[in-house]
């Protein structure tokens, strides 16, 4: 990667950040979603409201948190509340505009598995489990999914359904009556998939510069549909890259010092 260049993580992060309108209330997870939200805060969306499930509401961390409950999140929050209240008073009450999700597996309707690979009772791989995902999937007004694309993770059949996307598609989610509308976009390291308006099936809607449709098809475990018009996304603007890299450098520096307890 050259100084003028960028890597796939950066493209994903910038793409995710671009989805966020200023003032939106986001329920954020650690990793790329956290980077994307904090990038948006520093660029086009200074009034973004970030909620982490640790109970930190309206937080503006100076560096990226490494855990969902870093002290940094509490120190810069509007308020710190008990976890049951985050889920009850904010998510379930319908006050979250955007929820971010990721998972080990996704299917063509945006349903997610973060529980097990293999059978539940005798898993080949036991994954961390649900956390806040199932309720984010149902209650956030809309959901953004961020996942690297491969045939192992974009699968024809989930081993376990942890969090709902569009269920079996074709309006099934709407009929189930969830408060939230479901996944609006799946942001991968190759491009962006979006649900088709009739079938709810994810289709390729946008490509990163230099990525081909065939490359995305090859990274998808089902016969991927392609939207009638596939846009090629702009590469990250210099300002975005600068903001992101400044944030990441500050993060690395902040977390480099070894911890000493003065007891």
């Amino acid at each position, binding site marked *: 990667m050259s100084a003028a260049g960028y890597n796939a993580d950066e493209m994903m992060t910038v793409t995710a950040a671009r989805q966020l309108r200023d003032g939106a209330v986001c329920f954020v997870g650690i990793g790329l979603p956290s980077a994307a939200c904090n990038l948006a805060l520093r660029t086009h969306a200074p009034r973004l409201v970030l909620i982490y499930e640790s109970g930190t509401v309206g937080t503006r961390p100076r560096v990226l948190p490494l855990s969902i409950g870093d002290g940094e999140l509490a120190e810069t929050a509007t308020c710190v509340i008990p976890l*049951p209240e985050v889920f009850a008073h904010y998510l379930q009450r319908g006050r979250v505009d955007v929820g971010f999700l990721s998972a080990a597996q996704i299917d063509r309707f945006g349903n997610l598995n973060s529980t097990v690979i293999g059978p539940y009772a005798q898993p080949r791989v036991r994954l961390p489990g649900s956390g806040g995902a199932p309720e984010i999937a149902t209650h956030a007004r809309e959901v953004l999914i961020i996942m690297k694309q491969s045939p192992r993770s974009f699968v024809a059949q989930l081993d376990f359904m942890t969090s709902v996307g569009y269920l079996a598609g074709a309006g099934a989610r709407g009929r189930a009556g969830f408060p939230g509308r479901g996944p609006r976009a799946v942001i991968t390291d190759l491009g962006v998939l979006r649900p088709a308006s009739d079938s709810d099936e994810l289709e390729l809607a946008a490509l990163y510069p230099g990525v081909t449709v065939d490359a995305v098809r090859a990274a998808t475990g089902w016969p991927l549909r392609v939207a009638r018009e596939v846009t090629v996304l702009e590469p990250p603007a210099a300002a975005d890259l600068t903001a992101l890299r400044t944030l990441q450098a500050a993060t690395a520096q902040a977390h480099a010092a070894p*911890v000493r307890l003065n*007891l």
Partner: protein
Amino acid sequence: MGVMPLQEAIARHVRDGHSVALEGFTHLIPFAAGHEIIRQGRRNLHLIRMTPDLIYDQMIGMGCAAQLTFSWGGNPGVGSLHRLREAIEHGWPAPLQIHEHTHAELGAAYAAGAAGLPCGLLHHYAPTDLDLAGGPHTLVCPFTGQRLRAVRAVNPAVTILHAQLADEQGNVLIRGIVGAAREAALAARCVLVTVEALVPRLDAAPNALVLPHWLISAVSVARGGAHPSYAAGCYERDNRFYLQWDEISRDREHFASWMREHVVDCPDHSATLRRLGVSA
């Protein structure tokens, strides 16, 4: 309430077979207390925690647990909990019966327990495979006909927390991220608390999070008692250790020898911290 050494608090109040919740969400995880339970060799515990984190990875790997109630079982920001995975995937060192929830469900279950109710309510959502794992039931709202999800209350036999301060009476002050610690304490039959320090008066702000002394069975001083988690205002999270744990815990033998050296063969948490090289 009594102020007593941690060894005595655990010996007196935590018994084989108990349901035990060591709570604290990322912040204020009671590692000192968990290590003391390991040292005292408790068996067949039903461990309850939203995020098992390293402390339950250690307790499960050391054979303390027969059951686990949880809602997210990873190493935060790092990846897997290898000892938890081995217990579920291979039954090692012992089979582990799991009771799996979402964060919202387990939060509501603690809250119901704290309120003396047998169950709590959440919005219903269409069945995912989590329902097959057993758990919530559907109830119908008598006013609106809306379907609701009922979750069974969780009332641990013992809840153990770590906090910054207690005063001489044993009132406990928690500052910062609290997760479901308060609900887990209010739901429990017995509450043990380790603190960074005892002070004459808490001088807590109005509406601060204070647990009254008469809800608490024992307060023990354990400086650094949340390490490698953290205590806001006292010390930071040892993110480096969380990364190292991924390596330490991958292999049964490596794990066992590490635990022997850093926990079992240490008389107390101060010794553990010295051996880890994080305190003098």
